[in-house]
Each structure stands twice: as structure tokens, then as C-alpha cells.
């Protein structure tokens, strides 16, 4: 008995799947293709009534845009910094959860909270912590006679604040992925090494780390690509400022599209990003695709 022999039922099934497919095509795929088409057009919503084909003009502009280059650099710095911090926190926390502490699952649930909260709320909470009038961090520095730091108001401290907020929000994800990789390491390996007198540090470096290193690469890659496109917290915490010092690439696109109304050029930047991401994904899947599916399955 095979489903293939069901005949008329088969058609019913296909019809059942159709609405979802059409919906995805209409609201996700078609708009993406339209964005690519628009990237070859001059279209400023204020000045142009219709999109006007202008060949590769937008792309030439893209290559000479120093503002964009600056935004890309900032995004890379942010993504690198935040991925590094999250990796360290994630490894430590995952090793801790892997050691079977009491009430582990409850604790894991609490620990996951930041990444499930709305990103704008994460941004709000961290803005509050850094705020000069109501925030505890400037206050503690004041009480302890530490330096006065205008948090979120200088280029460096604004970047620092965003990295801190992002590390708080996303270290749990890193932890979860690394923890799931640690859970499959056979316990006998630890027992055997302990009998031979290995210390906790040796256990971690010689047994745990080599076996989760693949997952470290997968998780770091995921977080890097995600952080590279960070937007929500920038909106709430710094608004891209001071000046343009935290204007990451997504914020740059937003400003082009919805403040300068340069829809054509913004589409070009998006398409450029898409190409970058496609390259990253290809390299990434070639190296870690198998690992990735084994995690998901």
C-alpha cells in the first residue's frame, strides 16, 4: 500500500499544500525578486513617479559610497565583537549546564529568557541600565569614584553598550547549541580520563572542546551573520548615533529607503548584501551543512 496509489487523494493533498506555497511566493519570494529588479532603477519616492531603469548606475554609486563602506565596517566590528563575547559566555555556560546542576531545565528556561524577549525590550532594558539619570551603571561608577562615562553618547561607549546588550540577548542561543553538542559526548570518556587522574581543565580542553569545535564554528557563523544585520537594538539604544558611529548596514538601508526615500538605491544595497550573504552561506553550507542538518534533525 503506497500513498502514490491513492489517485484522487493525491490531488487533494497537493491542493492542500497550495495556499501555503502561494502565500510564501506572493509575500516573500516575489517581493525579494522585485527588490532585485528595483535595484536597477532610479526611484526616489519624492521625485520620481515611476521607477526608471538606469542600468548599472546604482551599482556604480554603491561602489563609491563611503557612507556604505563605513556602515559595513561598523557592522563587521560589531558582529565580530559580539560573536566573540557570546562564544566565551556560551562555552562556559554550556559546560556548566552539561555538568548536570540541580534544577537544570528550570534554570535553562530562565537563562533563555533574553533571546525570546522582544529585541526592542532588550534594547530598552539596557538603555535603562546605561542611562545617566535613572541607570544603575553610571550610578555605581559614581559611588565607587570610577570614571564618568557618557554611555551610549560617544562612538566607543555606544558600540560597547550595543555589544553588551547583544551578548546578553544571544549568549543563550550559543549556549543552547553548544550544550546540545556536549550532551552527545559519551560520559565514559570522562570517567576513563578521571580514573587516569585528569583535572577538570584537562577534561574540558582534551575531551569536550575537540568534540564540540564543529558546533562552535556553526554557532559562531550563525551569530555572525545575524549580528551583521542587527537593527532593532540600534533603533532603541542609539538611533545610529552619536553621529553615524553605530549606523550599521541595516540602519543605513533603512535610512536610505525611509528617510531619503531612495527606494532604488536602497534596493541596490540590499541586493549587494544578499550577494554577500549568498557567498557566505555557500561557503558555510559546504563546510558545515552536514553538521547543521544533524543538529536540526
Amino acid at each position: 500500500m503506497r500513498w502514490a496509489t491513492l489517485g484522487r487523494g493525491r490531488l487533494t493533498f497537493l491542493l492542500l499544500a497550495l495556499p501555503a506555497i502561494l502565500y510564501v511566493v506572493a509575500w516573500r519570494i516575489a517581493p525579494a525578486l522585485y527588490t532585485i529588479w528595483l535595484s536597477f532603477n532610479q526611484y526616489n519616492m519624492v521625485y520620481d513617479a515611476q521607477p526608471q531603469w538606469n542600468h548599472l548606475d546604482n551599482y556604480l554609486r554603491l561602489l563609491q559610497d563611503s557612507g556604505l563602506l563605513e556602515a559595513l565596517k561598523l557592522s563587521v566590528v560589531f558582529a565580530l565583537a559580539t560573536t566573540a563575547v557570546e562564544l566565551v559566555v556560551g562555552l562556559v555556560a554550556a559546560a556548566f549546564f552539561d555538568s548536570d546542576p540541580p534544577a537544570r531545565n528550570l534554570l535553562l528556561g530562565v537563562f533563555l529568557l533574553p533571546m525570546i524577549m522582544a529585541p526592542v525590550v532588550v534594547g530598552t532594558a539596557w538603555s535603562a541600565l546605561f542611562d545617566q539619570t535613572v541607570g544603575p551603571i553610571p550610578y555605581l561608577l559614581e559611588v565607587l569614584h570610577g570614571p564618568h562615562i557618557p554611555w551610549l553618547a560617544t562612538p566607543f561607549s555606544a558600540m560597547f553598550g550595543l555589544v553588551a546588550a547583544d551578548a546578553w540577548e544571544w549568549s543563550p542561543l550559543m549556549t543552547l547549541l553548544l550544550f546540545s553538542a556536549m550532551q552527545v559526548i559519551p560520559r565514559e570518556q570522562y570517567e576513563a580520563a578521571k580514573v587516569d587522574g585528569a583535572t577538570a581543565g584537562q577534561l574540558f580542553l582534551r575531551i569536550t572542546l575537540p568534540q564540540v569545535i564543529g558546533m562552535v564554528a556553526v554557532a559562531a557563523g550563525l551569530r555572525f551573520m545575524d549580528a551583521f544585520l542587527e537593527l532593532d537594538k540600534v533603533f532603541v539604544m542609539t538611533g545610529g548615533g552619536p553621529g553615524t558611529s553605530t549606523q550599521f548596514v541595516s540602519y543605513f538601508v533603512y535610512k536610505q529607503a525611509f528617510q531619503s526615500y531612495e527606494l532604488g538605491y536602497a534596493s541596490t544595497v540590499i541586493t549587494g548584501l544578499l550577494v554577500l550573504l549568498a557567498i557566505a552561506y555557500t561557503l558555510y553550507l559546504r563546510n558545515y551543512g552536514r553538521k547543521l542538518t544533524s543538529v536540526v534533525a
Partner: protein
Amino acid sequence: MIGGRQRRRWGHWLGIALILLWTLPPFLYLVLLSVKPERLMVERSVLLFWPTIERYREIVVSDLGAPIWNSLLTSTVGAALTLVLAVLAAVTFSFLDFRGKAALFLLILLPRMFPPVTTLIPIQLMLKELGLIDTKTALIVLFTGFQIPLAIWVLRAFLEEIPRELAESAAIDGASLPTIVSRILLPLAVPGLLAAFILAFIFNWNEFLFPLIVTSFNAKTGSVAIMSFAGGYKKLQWGSLAVLGVVMTIPVILFVMAFRAALIRGFTAGALKG
């Protein structure tokens, strides 16, 4: 031996303390601000005071809470519609073999590979054309579409675990397809349905960029309301901001506590969308 175990337990307590110290303070401080009386707002040394619930009352009785209700309505309806569409497709993808299935499945998962900004501009133009800017309908339409790929992905993982023999033997006994789906498959996939619904709801609830560009006043969501209080690094109304933040987090906490296992599983799958 006993010494070693003692040390281990001590380490566990230290670890638990560190985990809580890492996770809780930012959120608890927001809770603290939300109930701090206005005149004490800048007195940072004051941590003990008679809490005011005035702002929470305002959320319920005044317009201040409208964005929260918008979020609740659009996220729920959006997630429900997502589930209906996704379950139909997921059943097909897990129980039927046909030519081009892999390609079709890839087509559905493809949007998970590219970032949401890709669709931002056309969607705004499209909704403008349809006259749906600043309506709840627009949000529901968008939310329904956004989470379909994720929901299908999660549902399929659950459906694959149902033994095919169950459905096949029912078919031999002459049960029709709708009967098989509604009587056998769906009841067994309830945990999956729940996980997909919760994930879709939470992603909708947290969504920020699309509500920001397609709503302005009438259909403004919770995240957008927070943004309008908190643009840039100079903020004034900390009390209202904190209340909105806490209220936006309540459903998230409830869901996490109630469905931790399903959520952890779904998130490990969902997180991989990049």
C-alpha cells in the same frame, strides 16, 4: 571522594548564582522602574519604596495600552492563520511522494535564507497600493506569511515521527483522506501544532521592523510604541517605557514557563534560519 562531590556541589551553586546574576538584573531593573513613583525616578539609591501600579492601570484603561492590544490581536490571528496554512502543507510534504517535491520544499524554505529587509520596500509599496497602511489587517496578512516556512519546518519534524503504517492501514480500511488527516495525523501532532503556534506567536509579538514601516498610529504595535518613546539615546518617560517593556515580556515569560521543552526544541531548529 566525598570531598570531590562537595566541591562539585559548591561549584554548582556558584554556577547557578552566576547564571541568575547574568540573566535577571537587566529585566528586574526594568520591573523596578515600572513601579517606581515618578518623584523617586532619578533617586537611584532608593531601591525600597512603596510601588505604584498607576502606570499598569493606565495600560488597561487608557489609550496607552492600545498598541499592546493591537500586538495581541494581530500576533494571535496571524499565528493561527499560519498554523492552518502550514499544517496543510506540512502533511503533504511528510506523507506524500511526488515529482518536484524537493524543489517545492526548497522554495518554501528559501525565504528563511534571506534577511527580512529584502522584502521591506516592495511590501510597503504593495500595502500602500492596497490601501492597507496602518491597519491591523496589514499586520495579520504579513504575520501569516512570515512564519509559514518556520511553521512547516517545525511541523514536519513532528509529523515525520508518526509511523506511516498508522495512516496506511487506515487507508486500507477505507478511511478517506480528510478522515485520516483529522482523526489520526493531527491528534498525534498536537505537540508540534502547539510548538509551531507558540513560535509563530512569539516571533510576531517581537516583530519590529515591519510594524514600524507599515503602521503609524491606529495599528501601532507594542514594539513600535516602545520605539516612539525611546528613539535615540535621550529618553524621558522612563516609567511608561518600562511598563511597556514589562508588559511586552509577560506573555513571553508565560510561554517559556509553560512550554519550555517544545520551545527549546523549536528554537534550535528556528535559530538556524540565520
